[in-house]
């Protein structure tokens, strides 16, 4: 039993990191008022670009993660053009981007022969004697570098969003673009940069799935994690630290699925594989029933294009 719990906890953080980073990226976009349904697509772009960097450029894993971020940010330029500059319906543009990225990654992955090729990927970095602590040692101090970096990334973004002038302006743009505009904030620029920065984090989440955990690229390998991250943002009420806690919870559930089979417990495989989606739905329902969300949680201008010429 102790062994089961130890191996479960040891795997949890690696499963939590993609959710955490993708949710954080989404929070940056959405706090600026841009509804981004693109996570599933941009995670795929990051995942493919990371593996591609390793296979084609012989990039070390950390550089491959950076390539994944850059690739997602690059594709996000198109999304930002559509929703921030051309002011399209953000739901339509976001969904079209996901479908675009699914098709693109599958085409590029096959065309370059990157599909189903195992790569080295990130290695574990045990933190000296801490890694030998019973139970917690393996869970917390014998992880790869991105797991350790996730905490400072969250601290930095949370500070930026809530304590800095930039964050204040960004949130103003998401709450009331008209007021922000009147106060001299460049709404278009803030939203554009927020989409790019958020998407880069989503790309990092995807690259971590392929370069960090799976160490392989497979078509559509994110299998719905982007949608779960979107649910997680609602659960987190657009707050970074709550998103991190939620991501760890989801990581716990997802890492449980392979452990159960490995522990020899008889459970139908495909029923177990449904678990993350069912739990996500369950959490959304529970949030709604318990009415834990307050109306003020959601950025007020979320999903609304800012059209200065129509200012009233």
């Amino acid at each position, binding site marked *: 039993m102790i062994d089961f719990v130890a191996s479960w906890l040891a795997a949890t953080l690696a499963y939590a990191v993609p959710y955490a980073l993708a949710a954080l990226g989404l929070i940056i976009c959405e706090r600026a008022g841009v509804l981004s349904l693109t996570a599933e697509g941009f995670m795929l772009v990051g995942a493919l670009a990371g593996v591609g960097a390793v296979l084609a450029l012989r990039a070390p894993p950390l550089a491959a993660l950076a390539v994944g971020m850059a690739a997602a940010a690059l594709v996000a330029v198109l999304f930002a053009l559509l929703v921030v500059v051309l002011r399209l319906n953000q739901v*339509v543009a976001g969904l079209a981007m996901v479908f675009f990225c699914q*098709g693109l990654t*599958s085409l590029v992955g096959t*065309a370059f022969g990157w599909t189903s090729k195992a790569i080295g990927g990130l290695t574990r970095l045990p933190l000296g004697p801490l890694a030998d602590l019973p139970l917690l040692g393996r869970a917390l101090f014998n992880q790869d570098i991105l797991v350790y970096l996730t905490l400072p990334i969250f601290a930095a973004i949370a500070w930026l969003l809530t304590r800095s002038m930039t964050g204040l302006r960004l949130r103003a743009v998401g709450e009331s673009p008209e007021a922000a505009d009147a106060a001299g904030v460049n709404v278009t620029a803030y939203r554009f940069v927020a989409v790019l920065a958020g998407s880069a984090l989503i790309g990092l989440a995807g690259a971590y799935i392929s370069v960090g955990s799976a160490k392989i690229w497979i*078509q559509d390998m994110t299998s719905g994690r982007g949608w779960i991250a979107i649910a997680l943002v609602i659960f987190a009420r657009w707050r970074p630290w709550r998103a991190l806690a939620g991501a760890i919870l989801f990581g716990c559930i997802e890492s449980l699925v392979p452990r159960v089979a490995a522990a020899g417990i008889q459970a139908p495989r*495909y029923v177990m594989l449904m678990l993350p*989606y069912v739990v996500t739905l369950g959490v959304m*329902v529970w949030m709604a029933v318990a009415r834990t969300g307050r109306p003020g949680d959601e950025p007020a201008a979320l999903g609304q294009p800012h059209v200065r010429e129509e200012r009233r």
Partner: protein
Amino acid sequence: MARLVLDIRREASAPFHAALTAASVFAGLAISAAILIAAGVPPAALADEFVVATLFDAQSLHAVLFQAAPLIMVGAGAAIAFRARFWNLGLEGQMIWGAIAATAVSLFEIGPPMLRLPLMFLAAIVAGMAWIALPLLLKQRLAVNEIVSTLLLNYVALNVLLHLLYGAWADPKDSFPHSPLYRGFERLPELPGGISSALVLALAAVAALAWLTLASRFGFHLRFVQAGPAVARSLGVPVLGVTVAATLLSGSLAASAGFVIVAAQEGRLTQSFFTGYGVSGVLIAFLARNNPAAAAIVALLVAILFAAGQNLQVFYQIPFAMVQLIQAIVVIAAAAADFFLRHRVRWVKGIG
């Protein structure tokens, strides 16, 4: 100093609208062609695969029309839900449940042979409605976002399908993940003249939907709901009833698409019969601006794309996902064109 100035265009003329749409679709196709050529398809083969081989070859044309039936159904299904402001992204899940329910009727030999096929169809429709009823209920009662819930339910439905195909419903004759073949009378027949009865079903459904949205009281109410539920409610439109009816209709249309694929094309329940259809349904509805009749026409064009995509996969090893990529590019181009429909861009010279 010159600068760009944006004006809001209140109304665009119909010819301008049509020209813009045509130009954007053409631009999207041109970008797609460039991507395909970059991926290794010889330019000369493109025209051949897309136009000549699909439309001027009797056998390919037959395949295109065959493919069109489920695409028309998912496209019209997405359109009717979007009109009621319900983002049904669960088309795949509803297709899967439709096919599962139809297969259950076949497996358990429910009803006499004469009635078997209608019963399979009926079971599919009921299953599709049931599967969309959950996110509909969650949205109406608890305001749970249906985009996320319908998408999550797709993954649940997929795992149910795999659970059945890798378990109790696997064909005992071989070790592949599919159900036993349907009996002859459980398959949608081909009508005289080589027309698939699935296509007739799809066109009948579209005709009914077109009448429903254009000429019926329901369609009149639906237009109010589409324009704005709050105003519609204050005008006395039964918003809840209209939304529920349109959404259930959407689920049943997607399930019908699943039914016609397994009953006309595959002849059994397979693990990937739905691939590409869910996404196409959404994109068809976007391009058709949620108009059921227009969705049928767009679906026919997408069916050509599907047929060409299958050829490209066989002859040039281009993955089938290319079909999805091209549709997404065309939708993005068409959506981007909307900007010019709603705005006028002017150069202003001098000090701004």
